[in-house]
């Protein structure tokens, strides 16, 4: 049973900001907040439902990129064709959140503001260089997503401000991205480890690289030093392995009941190789083929990460 609370469902943005500044708990999909409330972890006496605010609604794809309202659900990203062909990592991240039911409710803005280090949509947004817009009664500010996180569940946002929109620039035709989520079961699990990568390739050289790590620190984070290893270098297995070793040194995963820090660090290395390979392959494909899944490539020494069998191949005897 949910604790008793007063519910506010304003349509006016300034009114919503005032309520938030006054201590009301903002709720969009409620897939984190209500879970915490059921569990007794969150006892907010006032709940602010922000789903009626027009400033946070709508999503559009144009020549300048994606303009996403903070209320965009993961399901909307998952079934959107342009996302698959241009922002494949976002498709991979958003389609692996929870279950279909959760994805119909859970919003991108909520995934950011919940602040979990394991958030699946954030790594892909980081590597696609997303910029968030926060707005309050005094106007709006644009902040690059990697600067928006200031610590564990801490953000560059004032009490009277709300996250309103996300802008994701349009990647060029020679770009490719990938996200890999390692989890113990195929659905309804948090990322034990996740790595996202975005590369642009020209004449077989990395001309732009972004790598983001999930569950590797207090917030989802970029691995800037690994990006520097690859930048300007010709594409090769050796340089990708070097980048993976740098990621392994830069990531600071913790031990938890899900897994030990040692295992997570090993995963960082192996998954970085997988996503970089996938992103490179996708970057080399023409735009029309970028939406296709790329089979995972096995490297020597990757014995710990065998590809999962295809669902058609799984036979269960009854």
């Amino acid at each position, binding site marked *: 049973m*949910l604790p008793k609370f007063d519910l506010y469902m304003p349509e006016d943005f300034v009114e919503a900001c005032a309520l938030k500044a006054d201590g009301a708990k903002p709720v969009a999909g*409620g*897939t984190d907040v209500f*879970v915490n409330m059921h569990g007794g972890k969150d006892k907010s006496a006032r709940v602010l439902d922000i789903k009626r605010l027009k400033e946070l609604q709508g999503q559009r794809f144009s020549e300048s990129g994606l303009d996403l309202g903070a209320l965009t659900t993961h*399901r909307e990203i998952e079934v959107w064709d342009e996302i698959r062909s241009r922002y494949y990592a976002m498709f991979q991240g958003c389609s692996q959140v929870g279950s279909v*039911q*959760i994805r119909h409710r859970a919003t991108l803005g909520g995934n950011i503001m919940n602040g979990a280090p394991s958030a699946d949509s954030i790594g892909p947004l980081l590597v696609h260089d997303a910029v968030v817009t926060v707005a309050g009664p005094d106007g709006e500010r644009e902040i690059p997503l990697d600067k928006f996180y200031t610590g564990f569940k801490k953000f560059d946002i004032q009490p009277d401000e709300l996250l309103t929109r996300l802008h994701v620039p349009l990647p060029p035709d020679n770009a490719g991205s990938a996200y890999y989520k390692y989890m113990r079961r195929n659905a*309804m699990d948090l990322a034990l480890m996740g790595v996202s990568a975005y590369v642009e390739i020209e004449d077989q050289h990395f001309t732009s690289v972004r790598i983001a790590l999930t569950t590797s620190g207090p917030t989802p984070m970029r691995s800037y030093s690994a990006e520097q290893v690859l930048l300007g270098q010709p594409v090769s297995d050796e340089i990708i392995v070097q980048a993976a070793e740098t990621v392994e040194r830069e990531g600071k995963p913790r031990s938890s009941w899900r897994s030990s820090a040692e295992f997570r660090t090993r995963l960082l290395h192996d998954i970085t190789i997988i996503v970089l390979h996938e992103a490179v392959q996708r970057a080399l494909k023409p735009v029309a083929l970028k939406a296709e899944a790329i089979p995972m490539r096995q490297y020597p020494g990757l014995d710990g990460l065998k590809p999962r069998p295809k*669902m058609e191949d799984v036979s269960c005897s*009854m």
Partner: protein
Amino acid sequence: MQYVEINVTVNGELYNKTVPANKTLLRFLREDLFLNGVKEGCNEGECGAFTVLVDGEPMNSCLVLAAELNGREVLTVEGLAQDGRLHPLQEAFIEAGAIQCGYCTPGMLMSAVALLNRYPHPTRAQIRKEMEGNICRCTGYTRIADAVLLAVEKMDTAEKNQSPQRNQKVLAGTKK
């Protein structure tokens, strides 16, 4: 305690009710409308036994407030059968032996309805992916997937014979 007045359509019938602000859709359906098909499992959105369709989309009724539902349409497992005749999915679940204790079944059926609205001829992989949020602890998922495929066959045959077996109310209640 704050109360909210809502007008909500459930299984084709319009209800005007006053609900406490903190009441979930699940409790509203079970306690106010006595629709006990929707089940409370974990109450955290993990198990899928809570699945109902809101405006045609599967949602976790334990994490949705009843107060949000003003003007919206809800379909529960009770709304599947029509004129005393089971929905093809329900028939298929029985015939394929996809039920054991039955606790997950209402949620499974609602997820399957949503699945077939999106993919009328799903592959086994699509069934597994779209129904990943429903957990069954008895029969395993193979027979459930078998049942969905059997239901597709039944619906196709019914369509060929132009019989009105395919549930019109279900299709009407889902905005695509």
